[in-house]
């Protein structure tokens, strides 16, 4: 068993590695590059070039991929010659700012800047502000006599300045384009990498992606869990009723209803439910807009329609599987034997049929988890539910690349992980499956 688990884990690891390559390739290499998406149509070529430099897009694809996954601080440390550290400080209620510093031997956190051809050291004070010191003595000289310096700049990048290079840096912020002379000639944007929990800054929310995603995952898990808790027992019950009454009217009705709910696109189900319950009956809200973190607890009605929508698709699918497995078991020789042996119908159903029917939900998780998660993404966008799926959709519409990448990886990891766990549980409880 342990061997089987380890082998499955290794396969999963390989799959996730390939998935990360696919996600990275689609998002970053695809036509319409990141810098252009950020800057819009009106940037000049110089401005775009500068932006690409600053984002580190001029580095090779492999270097960028490695930096995205494993971080870039360890790549920059030998160049700067000092250990680098990230500080996290609370700004306001939610937004946190992350800053990179070089750690000097005496424990000072420093960044550098060049102003009017002069190198300036910025030493971080305990209150978060910086103290400026001229540092022209720190310029290093290479073999050709050119003065250069590798340090950490004020924009969370390791950067190389060349004395008197007159490089122009364009930055883009709320007030428009800013121009700065004496800028670095090379940048390495610093990050810890996805695997160490740093997914970069969201271009849209201007805060670390990992912060936003954390909140969203909780909301999505609540929705998924509720939808599952509601739909699986209902579906098993209905499937059982239909299977035991094979061919009768009630079976026909349940089967057709199952076919319709399983086949309808989730957004259509959601829209029809909104029409009936929010527009015509006016009993439930048609959108799940959260005004506070505890909105679900204050007004549970908010989540009823999203849960129903996500659940209905599952009900249809699980119902059909349960029904066909019940029909199969009812026609099996051992059930016939049990009936001939004189067991009551009730005993046969509980002892034999129900036990086999209970396997269906687990099979469904295995086969259907991706479908279910895809459905959640759609349901969340129908109701504006602040979950991970809605987040990915907005990131995709806004071309918030780091957010898309990180959120997709998290979502796929959840999907693959669920599948693995369901698979292991299945092989544990089903005596017919032998793991090799």
């Amino acid at each position, binding site marked *: 068993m342990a061997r089987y688990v380890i082998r499955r884990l290794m396969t999963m690891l*390989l*799959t*996730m590695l*390939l*998935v990360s*390559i*696919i*996600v990275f390739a*689609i*998002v970053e290499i*695809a*036509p*319409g590059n990141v810098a252009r998406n950020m800057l819009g149509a009106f940037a000049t070529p110089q401005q775009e070039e500068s932006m690409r430099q600053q984002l580190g897009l001029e580095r090779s694809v492999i270097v960028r991929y490695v930096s995205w996954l494993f971080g870039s601080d360890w790549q920059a440390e030998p160049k700067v010659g000092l250990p680098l550290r990230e500080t996290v400080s609370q700004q306001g209620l939610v937004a946190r700012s992350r800053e990179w510093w070089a750690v000097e031997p005496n424990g000072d956190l420093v960044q550098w800047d060049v102003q009017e051809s002069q190198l300036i050291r910025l030493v971080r004070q305990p209150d978060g502000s910086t103290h400026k010191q001229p540092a022209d003595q720190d310029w290093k000289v290479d073999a050709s006599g050119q003065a250069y310096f590798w340090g950490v700049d004020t924009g969370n990048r390791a950067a190389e300045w060349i004395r008197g290079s007159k490089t122009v840096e364009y930055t883009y912020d709320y007030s428009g384009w800013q121009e700065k002379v004496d800028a670095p000639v090379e940048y390495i944007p610093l990050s810890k990498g996805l695997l160490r929990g740093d997914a970069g800054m969201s271009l849209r929310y201007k805060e670390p992606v990992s912060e936003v995603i954390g909140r969203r995952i909780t909301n999505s898990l609540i929705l998924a869990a509720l939808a599952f808790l509601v739909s699986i027992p209902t579906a098993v019950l209905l499937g059982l009723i239909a299977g035991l009454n094979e061919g009768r009217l009630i079976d026909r009705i349940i089967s057709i209803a199952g*076919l*319709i709910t399983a*086949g*309808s*696109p*989730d*957004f*259509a189900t959601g*829209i*029809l439910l*909104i*029409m009936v319950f929010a*527009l015509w009956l006016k009993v439930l809200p*048609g959108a799940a807009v959260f005004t506070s973190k505890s909105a679900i607890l204050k007004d549970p009605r908010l989540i009823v329609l999203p849960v129903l929508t996500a659940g209905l698709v599952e009900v249809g699918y699980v119902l059909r599987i349960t029904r066909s497995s019940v029909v199969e078991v009812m026609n099996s020789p051992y059930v016939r034997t049990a009936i001939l042996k004189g067991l009551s119908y009730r005993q046969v159903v509980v002892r034999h049929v129900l036990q086999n029917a209970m396997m269906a939900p687990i099979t469904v998780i295995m086969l259907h988890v*991706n*479908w279910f*998660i*895809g459905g959640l*993404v*759609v349901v969340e*966008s*129908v109701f504006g539910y602040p979950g991970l799926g809605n987040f*990915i*959709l907005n*990131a*995709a*519409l806004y*071309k918030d690349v780091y957010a*898309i990448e990180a959120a*997709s990886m998290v*979502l*796929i990891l959840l*999907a*693959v992980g669920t599948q693995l766990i369901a698979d292991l549980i299945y092989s544990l409880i089903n005596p017919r499956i032998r793991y090799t």
Partner: protein
Amino acid sequence: MGTENPATAKQIHTAPSAALTALKGYWKSVRDLAQVIFASPTAVIGLTLVILWVLIAVFAPLITTHTPFEQDYKLVNKGPSALHLFGTDDLGRDVWARVAYGARTILLLGPLSVLVAFACGVALGLPAGYYQGWVDEVVMRILDAFMAFPAILLYMIIISAVGASSFNVVIAIAIGGTPGIARLVRALTMDIRTREYVAAAKLCGEPDIIIMLREILPNCRGPLIVDFLLRIGYAAFYIGTLGFLGLGLPPPTPDWGGMVQEGHSHMTTNVWPVLCATLAIVTLVIGLNMFADGLREETMRYQ
């Protein structure tokens, strides 16, 4: 319904040998197919729904009084009237015209994307199943990784990267469908390659590519046709969903998902555009599913 089919049985015994009987053979297989379809009430209902939408799509100009692009600023967001059968949308466009022409969009793009996916799936699955070994290992590992994506997520990433257009929607849905098709083709190939006629072809010295395309692929067709039909249902499902998410065809193309998306915010004043487009996509997708499902159950009964 009949569990045995005399027509198929007879055809197996009297396999057409001469060139003249080939045409007759085709006619017979069409009749057999019809017999299979009519044996299943599910398939019949499904096919009826699909044919209905195909007719609407084909005769869209004849059965509508407006084009899907005409805007009437005096009649915005109105309910049904003599002039507009199902009312107008937020730009004063005829809802019925947009639904009818929207059927063209989805019925064109759906099968097209599945065809592209089949071309890719066959191109990957055939060699993987035929050569096995490392070719198989590499191809299947990569496809596994694609299958780890929830389909809608893959589409979202692709379309956000390359932009929303009908071409890109087709590409995205084709990429999403390829791994599943490749797996099916691979499994079928691994089975068929052990047959005697493949060995015979090898002995004759036929090149691998001919064996794959002439001997193996035609003998995979049964399961592939059923899979094809099922996938058209999925494709319609996803084209609608992408439209709804705002990642489908750019406006003003008539697109059901897009209609729901646009009408969504006006639902309290005018439900007609949303209601019509939603019912359209539901009936089409369910029709396609029922047709494919019924056909699959009926063909599995013979095996």
